[in-house]
């Protein structure tokens, strides 16, 4: 990483390892994952359920429930501070202030018995020296910023009085109230309808640009990734299997899993395509983390797997400028088929 880049880095995660101790044994939800986010940059983390993308986010926020989970290795550096070594009080100062998070289901992450305005005011008064009055005015301003119509009136309403899209806007207002350096959005639009999803994504990208916030967007939807991110990490069974710039990843995916994911997505506008053309499917299913195969976790589903894949885990190799993939056969992976 060059000097200029380093100065711009908001979050730097190195060799993060999070494990869960369960009755059926220990499993590595996040296994040796490294990445960084720069100011104003959007990093997307993609993968299917159970791949560790959400636990990665929770580990950064230090929200992994302990027990059964624990971050057992690596470092998380936010604006030069090692988050993993902070005590509870120091961490509380940072959460919601320098780093904040929005979740998939806004109804379960908003307090149902508090007015929207009060919930935003609470964040502001906790982290910034503000009188109740100033904070309320700021809360209304935040609601206006996320384009909620009639913010004065809406601030007095309770979450159940808002629609799903409005609730997610209110969540965004709350998350950005203290102008954090980093925003983590965990499937922020998965629960929303597609027209509302387009509105919310446009809003997040727009605000991020004006405020210069670093953004980690966690999603399973490659369409959302293509439309919002600058860089992408693909995760599979707790490990990072590929990382690249968004253009490079879509043009030239190197890992067989990434290729499989892209091929299995039905394209929406398949003009003239045969009606009942079959999709390319990835055979088998996502392995259980408690019972991972030795070697590459994707090998049992991979059509290119060789003996080495089943025995040894492939290291992350640089395959091009800013492009990394963990696959033994990466050198043979030319342009996408």
């Amino acid at each position, binding site marked *: 990483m060059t000097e200029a880049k380093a100065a711009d880095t908001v979050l730097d995660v190195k060799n993060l390892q999070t494990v869960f101790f369960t009755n059926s044994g220990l499993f590595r939800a996040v296994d040796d994952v490294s990445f960084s986010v720069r100011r104003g940059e959007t990093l997307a983390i993609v993968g299917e359920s159970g791949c560790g993308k959400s636990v990665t986010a929770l580990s950064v926020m230090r929200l992994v429930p302990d027990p059964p989970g624990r971050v057992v290795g690596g470092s998380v550096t936010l604006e030069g501070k090692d988050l993993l070594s902070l005590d509870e009080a120091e961490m509380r100062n940072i959460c919601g202030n320098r780093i904040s998070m929005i979740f998939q289901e806004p109804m379960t992450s908003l307090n149902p018995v508090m007015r929207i305005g009060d919930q935003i005011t609470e964040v502001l008064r906790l982290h910034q020296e503000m009188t109740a009055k100033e904070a309320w005015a700021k809360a209304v301003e935040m609601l206006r910023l996320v384009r909620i119509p009639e913010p004065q009136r809406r601030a007095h309403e309770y979450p159940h009085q808002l629609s799903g899209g409005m609730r997610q806007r209110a969540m965004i207002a709350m998350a950005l109230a203290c102008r954090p350096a980093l925003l983590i959005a965990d499937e922020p639009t998965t629960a929303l309808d597609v*027209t509302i999803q*387009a509105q919310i994504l446009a809003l997040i990208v727009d605000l991020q640009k004006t405020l210069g916030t670093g953004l980690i967007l966690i999603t399973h939807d490659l369409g959302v990734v293509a439309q919002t991110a600058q860089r992408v990490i693909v995760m599979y069974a707790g490990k990072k299997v590929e990382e690249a710039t968004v253009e490079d990843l879509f043009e030239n995916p190197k890992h067989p899993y990434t290729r499989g994911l892209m091929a299995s*997505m039905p394209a929406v506008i398949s003009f003239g395509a045969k009606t009942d053309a079959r999709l390319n499917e990835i055979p088998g299913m996502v392995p259980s983390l408690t019972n991972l195969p030795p070697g590459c976790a994707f090998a049992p589903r991979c059509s290119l797997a060789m003996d080495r894949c089943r025995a040894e885990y492939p290291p992350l190799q640089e395959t091009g400028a800013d492009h990394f993939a963990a696959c033994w056969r990466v050198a043979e992976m030319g342009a996408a088929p």
Partner: protein
Amino acid sequence: MTDQRPLLEVTDLVKHYAVRGGILRRRVGTVHAVDGVSFSVGKGETLGLVGESGCGKSTVARSVLRLVEPSSGAIKLNGTDITGLSKADMRPHRRSMQIVFQDPFASLNPRMTAGDIVGEPLGVHGIATGRAQQDRVAELFAQVGLRPDQMKNYPHQFSGGQRQRICIARALSLGPSLIVCDEPVSALDVSIQAQVINLLIDLQRKNDFSYLFIAHDLAVVAHISHRVAVMYLGRIVEIADKSELFANPRHPYTQALLASVPVADPKAKRLAPMIDGDVPSPINPPSGCAFHTRCRYAMDRCKVERPALVAAGEGHQVACWLNDGTGRAPEDL
């Protein structure tokens, strides 16, 4: 494909729910869940029904199966009007229509083995019992890509995709002519979605039944359907052959819906929401065309008069006042 009489004919289907309030539980309003929907599904055809949450697509599905009683309208299956049939008279028709639900976790009895779940309809309809039933179930398991030795397992021992396969096997067991799929893949991961969609397509080719396929995911619907109907607030606003609908959408809502789908191509950056605001409440739907509150082309007429679904080209119907009731031509885009 649709040369003969259609398999399923739905005419003017209406389903209203009462909203009750106050101590006396008086009727204080009406939810217009489905408000005059007509369509047909041919033999061996897949009709996709798309729309956002609350547009009434699931209510249509359930009304077709008479899982909810429609307020008015007619449902004809193979030419027989099933709308007014009694429970007993309905039973023989139940064999020819089956449903696959969205959530394979909630739609399987956790205390029954997979084999019993798939075999139960065979027993209920007196088709096969004992050994014969076992054999038939094993055959169905093989058809949906499960191993016959998994018959003795319980639902919790299966993954989401496998559970959906069990639901499909159960739907197949009676040899139906129509399978209603209500969001069958939206609870599944992308790579598993493709497997289940392929399975549904393969089964249709082999058995020649029809699907009424309901989903909010346009990509999935576009892939599996022959024809697609778009619903908005309880009404069909546009219906056409799949390739025609996606190439020449005529209703501004369909156009907005298509434009809202994020494209998996970073070069096509076009995250510009085409419509603002939320879907209005179906309790007091807007007058005239229900979409006029969000439509950027709304005219005075749209606010008062409700446009009917009329022909606007080969196999294409649209409900929009623009251009003399033919909707917005794609060349205006």
